[in-house]
């Protein structure tokens, strides 16, 4: 290995959501400094939420992130309903699962096609890729569109949908809307299957590392909205015990907080979910995976894109399953009565688990909240991966090659920097 000194600076990272950059300093052939800089300004959400009434919460938390507003709405309504002791109906539970499937389809396809794929095919952007990969790109964009259509049906629009309320939904979709969507989803199944095989054939770099996967786990279903927190090294806790195992702290180079599990970095997101819950995927999803050379659980970080495609296939089938049994409810929500207390909500955002805690007063006004987004959880893992990947590749490659690999590593996590910088409170953290 050469011993040259070099500095790699990526002023702004392309094809990630929100604003970040990267600094790497190599001295005597070793990485001496590495910082994934997140410089998106903090937006103080947790402060604005104080004093708001519980029914305003779904519309406000949606604005933390335009790419995954549903995830923020779901974690929040679950936490608030747990405080009020609300029992929702099976219809509401199903519709929330459906809404979440829409968000996975939208976000995962956006990431696979517009953000990640160009890295593996040697292009700077998806539009550059369009000339040679027009069929693949169109397939991806139409799958993304289906996700948007699901969210729109339940929430009026796909970004910051307005359908969710504490206690259920404002309105139930009509049979006619449902029928139309079923036809479109059915027609897309072969496309989703082909997508999984295509991602597995991309010639992804070998990148086998040691890391800890963390995700929700539910005894009866692939996790979306509910479950316990699980890792592949023995963690198995209810979401209410999150703060006893995970710790967040502030580093100088980032407006997002870093998060550790038992003082170590960990992975959340599609690869972590598939690694931990593979057996719960429908048989046809697993059989399709088995037609490829990729196997789960996988410790190749670049299999994230395959895991994302696997979840696209799953979300499509799950949405279809729910819609095929669709019945109009008497009423799309249950009445709620505010009461004081603290509650927890944790759901699987496209990028990984999103943990919330809310404290409300007896009128249902917000006293305090803490929101832990997936990107701040992944940030130490991304830095660990960067160091590992660049050293494994060999630091004597050209600056340009190293920089491209570094960017590819970061984009592979689909970091959502807008979410990560919504602002977090430190005063509720354990002594570190």
């Amino acid at each position, binding site marked *: 290995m050469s011993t040259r000194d070099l500095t790699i600076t990526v002023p*702004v*990272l*392309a*094809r990630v*959501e*929100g*604003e970040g950059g990267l600094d790497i300093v190599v001295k005597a052939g070793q990485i001496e400094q590495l910082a994934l800089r997140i410089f*998106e*300004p*903090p*937006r*103080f*959400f947790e*402060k*604005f939420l104080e*004093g*708001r*009434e519980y029914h*305003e919460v779904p519309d*406000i938390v949606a*604005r933390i*992130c*335009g*790419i995954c*507003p549903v995830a923020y709405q779901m974690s929040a309504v679950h936490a608030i309903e747990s405080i009020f002791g609300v029992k929702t109906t099976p219809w509401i539970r199903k519709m929330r699962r459906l809404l979440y499937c829409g968000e996975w389809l939208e976000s995962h396809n*956006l990431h696979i096609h*517009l*953000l990640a794929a*160009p890295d593996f095919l040697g292009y*700077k*952007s*998806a*539009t*550059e890729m*369009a000339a040679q990969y*027009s069929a693949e*790109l*169109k397939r991806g*964009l*139409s799958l*993304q*569109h289906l996700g*948007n259509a699901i969210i729109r049906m339940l*929430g*009026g*629009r*796909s*970004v*910051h949908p*307005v*359908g969710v309320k504490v206690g259920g939904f*404002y*309105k139930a979709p009509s049979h006619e809307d449902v029928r139309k969507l079923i036809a479109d989803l059915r027609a897309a199944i072969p496309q989703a299957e082909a997508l999984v095989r295509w991602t597995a054939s991309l010639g992804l770099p070998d990148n086998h590392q040691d890391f800890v996967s963390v995700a929700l786990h539910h005894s009866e279903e692939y996790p979306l909205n509910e479950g316990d927190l699980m890792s592949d090294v023995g963690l198995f806790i209810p979401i209410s015990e999150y703060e006893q195992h995970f710790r967040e702290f*502030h*580093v*100088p180079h980032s407006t997002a907080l870093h998060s550790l599990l038992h003082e170590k970095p960990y992975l959340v997101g599609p690869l972590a979910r598939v690694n931990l819950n593979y057996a719960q995927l429908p048989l046809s999803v697993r059989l399709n995976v088995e037609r490829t050379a990729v196997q789960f659980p996988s410790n190749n970080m670049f299999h994230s894109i395959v895991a994302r495609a696997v979840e696209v296939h799953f979300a499509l089938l799950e949405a279809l399953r729910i819609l095929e049994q669709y019945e109009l409810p008497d009423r799309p929500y249950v009445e709620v009565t505010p009461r004081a207390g603290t509650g927890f909500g944790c759901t699987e955002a496209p990028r990984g688990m999103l943990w919330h805690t809310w404290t409300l007063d007896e009128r249902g006004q917000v006293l305090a909240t803490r929101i832990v987004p997936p990107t701040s959880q992944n940030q130490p893992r991304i830095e660990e991966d960067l160091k590992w990947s660049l050293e494994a590749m060999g630091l004597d490659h050209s600056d340009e090659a190293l920089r491209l690999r570094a960017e590819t590593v970061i984009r592979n996590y689909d970091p959502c920097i*807008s979410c990560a910088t919504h602002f*977090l409170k*430190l*005063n509720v953290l354990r002594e570190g």
Partner: protein
Amino acid sequence: MSHTTVNRKPTVAIHKFSSCDGCQLAFLNLGEQLLQVADAVNIVHFVEAGAIQFDTPVDIAFVEGSLSTEEEVERIHAVRQQSQYLVTIGACATAGGIQALKNLHDAHAWTTSVYALPDYISTLSTASPISKAVHVDLELHGCPVNSYQVLSTIRALLFGVTPPLEQDKLCSECKRLGQVCVMVTQQMPCMGPVTRTGCGVICPRQQRDCYSCYGPAETINTHSLSQCLQETGLARDTIARRFALFNNQSPEYVKAIAQLGEST
């Protein structure tokens, strides 16, 4: 601009400031139409989509997000200089957005009370609309804006015409669509009477009240809406909070909030 487009593809940039990235999705969620847009115009700068040519002059610059750091204030001046048309997209860029709620508070105190290393957080004490710093040619309202708004803006500007501005009240569109009024029939605290059209009446069609993500319409009477809502039993501070949402820096809403804060 039409004469400039005869010999070359028009150029477009999409810039991001403090925001949730939701308005950019008006482009990224276009589906196959995105490929058509990329064919018709040359997108020279759009970080999220992989195009980074910050310094290239463009015909149309779309700007998402509000100004909340020194760096952002400097950057918007550079954007202004190299863009023929500067169009703001969304409530953040047009009215400060949700993060502008900090203007009503002491943001510095917030930062120091909650960040372990406050010196490393550089943020202005306010979040401002883009027009606070530079001239804006056109403002697209909404939190978020939709694809129809951005596409029709591109189309209109390419033909050298000023895009039609939606300024009507949401109420009028409800009536045109034959949508039953949720305020009259269900006593919901709807903001429709003071909200601009453009969303397609999403909320009343979902059987709920509008929370005014599109901001104020022209010639509105916020005072009379506040009174109506008080008559339905809503507290003044609850009503004030409805104005203090995604368009809390719009002058009409600033005034409404102030009036509600005064004691009677």
